[in-house]
């Protein structure tokens, strides 16, 4: 059989260095070449320069191949080919090219300027073959480039399961954004995400932001007008939306969900500290000096006191990234869309729109709540103190995410001690004290009592602030509720595969983490549900725990093609994910039952 040219090219690469060639450049030949209209500047470029291939690697092992085609060159669509190292052809998506009716070309489709090919995840090395011509010049033999193997998180569509991915095939679904885009274009995408944002506004992801903004506004004191309240909340909301848009950009840049990466000890600890400082400032311990620079700068915009526009923006930004690390369906949809298509602009715009939707109640709070808040006097003091405690509680709640549970309990104890003392739990009153003061003192004593219980709990190995003394009970009795579904916990891909390999049953993989607020809701509402328990009883249930988020955690997410917790992946007995069964965000018990039945 005739040897194909590229094969012989490979062979001869080794023979070339041995070849001795003497070049005799004669003036005669040069002048004749010029005389013969042979323009040497048209000498064809090396094919890899004429068709410069760049490969974008997507999380999950997908790739986008892009050719930047030099001016005056074109690539043939029909000659694009992708093969595995074993020689099996790999299916791919390519855009329609320019159709030539020129008889010289016949009916071929070619690409000018650029060409793009999308590939699903493929295990192992792949080779990409492409062929094109210099217009009016020469046609190149096929060029084959080998691309190194990527960590593949989903077996590819043609069923080529790699050794590394023996048991699981994920469903390939067109994303939320993609679907909206097809139906109504960019406008519908943005509108829909604004709507999703509105729906999410009262979920645990966004709810903590209401007291934060309330505290910010209360801290304004006399300077607070409805207008200033609205402007401050608008600043907060815009910063929050920008932070969400930044998530999209970061996902495009790094392939990772920045929000999850920020659940580190340092990031969360720093924000907890920030909230403690804000709380102490609310207690009137000191005037916040930190935003002084901002104050000066913002003086033209509005007389800054305590909270400023800069402060509002800073709080909004950190709130979105750190306060509510919720992976909701729209967020996951937008991040996956960006990851799959590289369309950062639309993805980020959708997330920005989501943030604006989430911000609507906050804007209303800013506009109308400002009137309700006292501006001076004793009530003003009371209200700021209350928000001070809200901030302190936020700090404790944040800190509890990243420290051992017992330490978290101790922190709660400390907060309650502060509350108890401030409420006057330890004050000595004379006989003629007003009933209101006595009630206040009673609350303070109660807080101190609770603090004592928590302190005792922390010292005795308790973990849950609502049941601080659980550690004192016997191990057998501990943790009765919410654990009726017996999850096998995995923290890395090998552990996941080992767990999946143990049984030929349908499986549920529940991506969760200690810091995932929505996961707490699921644990309270979904797992204790009788029907859910009955449905899951015949399934293998695996919890992919991302509490300590590290490289293993990211690999696990990549493998599951998830952007973070909470995500539920349902696999049938043969390890294939049921189409349309995946649940992201906060599903109800019925959703879980429906998805589980789908794969059984």
């Amino acid at each position: 059989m005739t040897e194909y040219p590229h094969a012989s090219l490979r062979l001869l690469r080794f023979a070339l260095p041995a070849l001795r060639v003497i070049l005799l450049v004669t003036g005669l030949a040069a002048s004749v070449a010029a005389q013969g209209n042979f323009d040497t500047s048209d000498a064809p470029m090396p094919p890899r320069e004429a068709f410069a291939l760049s490969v974008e690697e997507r999380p999950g092992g997908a790739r986008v191949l892009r050719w930047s085609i030099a001016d005056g060159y074109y690539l043939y669509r029909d000659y694009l080919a992708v093969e595995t190292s074993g020689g099996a052809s790999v299916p791919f998506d390519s855009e329609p090219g320019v159709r030539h009716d020129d008889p010289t070309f016949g009916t071929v489709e070619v690409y000018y300027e650029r060409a793009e090919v999308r590939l699903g995840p493929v295990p192992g090395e792949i080779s990409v073959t492409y062929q094109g011509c210099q217009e009016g010049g020469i046609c190149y033999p096929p060029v084959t480039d080998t691309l190194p193997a990527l960590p593949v998180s989903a077996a590819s569509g043609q069923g080529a399961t790699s050794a590394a991915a023996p048991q699981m095939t994920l469903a390939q679904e067109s994303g939320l954004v993609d679907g909206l885009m097809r139906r109504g274009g960019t406008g519908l995408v943005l509108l829909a995400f604004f709507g999703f944002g509105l729906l999410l506004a009262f979920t645990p992801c966004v709810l903590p932001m209401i007291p934060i903004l309330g505290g910010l506004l209360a801290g304004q004191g006399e300077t607070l007008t409805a207008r200033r309240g609205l402007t401050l909340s608008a600043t907060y909301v815009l910063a929050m939306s920008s932070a969400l848009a930044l998530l999209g950009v970061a996902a495009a840049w790094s392939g990772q969900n920045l929000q999850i990466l920020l659940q580190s000890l340092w990031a969360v600890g720093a924000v907890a500290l920030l909230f403690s400082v804000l709380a102490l400032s609310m207690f009137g311990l000191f005037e916040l000096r930190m935003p002084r620079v901002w104050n000066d700068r913002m003086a033209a915009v509005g007389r800054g006191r305590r909270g400023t526009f800069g402060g509002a923006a800073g709080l909004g930004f950190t709130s979105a990234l750190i306060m509510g690390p919720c992976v909701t369906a729209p967020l996951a949809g937008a991040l996956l869309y960006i990851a799959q298509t590289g369309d950062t602009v639309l993805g980020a715009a959708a997330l920005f729109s989501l943030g604006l939707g989430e911000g609507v109640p906050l804007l209303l709070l800013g506009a109308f709540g400002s009137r309700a808040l006292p501006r001076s006097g004793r009530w003003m003091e009371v209200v700021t103190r209350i928000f001070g405690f809200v901030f302190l509680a936020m700090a404790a709640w944040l800190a509890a995410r990243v420290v051992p549970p017992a330490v978290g309990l101790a922190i709660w104890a400390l907060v309650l001690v502060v509350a108890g003392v401030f409420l006057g739990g330890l004050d000595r009153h004379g006989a003629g004290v007003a009933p209101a003061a006595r009630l206040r003192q009673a609350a303070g004593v109660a807080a101190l009592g609770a603090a004592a219980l928590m302190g005792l709990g922390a010292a005795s190995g308790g973990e849950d602030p609502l049941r601080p003394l659980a550690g004192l009970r016997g191990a057998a009795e501990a943790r009765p509720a919410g654990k009726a579904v017996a999850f096998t916990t995995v923290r890395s891909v090998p552990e996941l595969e080992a767990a999946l390999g143990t049984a030929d049953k349908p499986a549920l993989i529940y991506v969760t983490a200690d810091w995932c607020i929505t996961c707490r809701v699921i644990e309270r509402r979904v797992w204790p549900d009788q029907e859910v328990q009955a449905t899951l009883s015949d399934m293998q249930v695996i919890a992919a725990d991302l509490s300590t988020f590290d490289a293993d955690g990211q690999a696990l997410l990549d493998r599951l093609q998830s952007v973070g917790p909470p995500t539920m992946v349902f696999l049938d007995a043969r390890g294939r994910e049921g189409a349309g069964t995946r649940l992201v965000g906060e599903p109800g018990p019925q959703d879980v039952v429906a998805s589980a039945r789908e794969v059984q």
Partner: protein
Amino acid sequence: MSRLTRRHVLTGTLLAAGAAGSLTLIRTEASAEELTVEAVLYDPDNPVLGNPDGDVTIVEFFDYQCPYCKANHPELTETAAADGNVRLVMKDWPIFGAASVRASQLALGAASLQGYRAANEALMATEGRLDDTHIADALGAAGFDIAALDAAYRENRDTWDGLMRRNSEQAALLGLRGTPAFIIGTTLYPGAMDAPALRGAIAAARG
């Protein structure tokens, strides 16, 4: 000027020099591959068009699906005929896949049946991309029996496959980027050439 990557430094040097200068090909003992003027211009197995005794040889590395090879083919044959003293060596270098290989095989098969020129002309006159049906139609219209061509090719399969393999090796050793590529005299001209360019190159080869 063509820009060079490290990968292509050596072949690129050849090509760049070839574009504006003459090229002397010498035998190398060290290499198993032989790249000589003799081998490139006078491969005994390659059919010769034009005047077999001409004083200037035009070698064209070509493919039956290469659009520029086909577009300029009439000018090439007319220029060679008008000159009357040009040996025209069409070197099959099928780079466009199976259909190109098939076309070359049948045309070379025609050489055994003394029909190479007609087969070559018929295939070079085709439009657009080829498949087996197109090839059969074009050769059938030129009066060929496809089965006979195929049998003729298979009869001398080692010869023809060897010839195409040598062509492809020579193309690599010469650093050819693709088709068409011309060697006129001992000067290498990559890319399509129109009649004036061909005439100039022929004159240059005669010195």
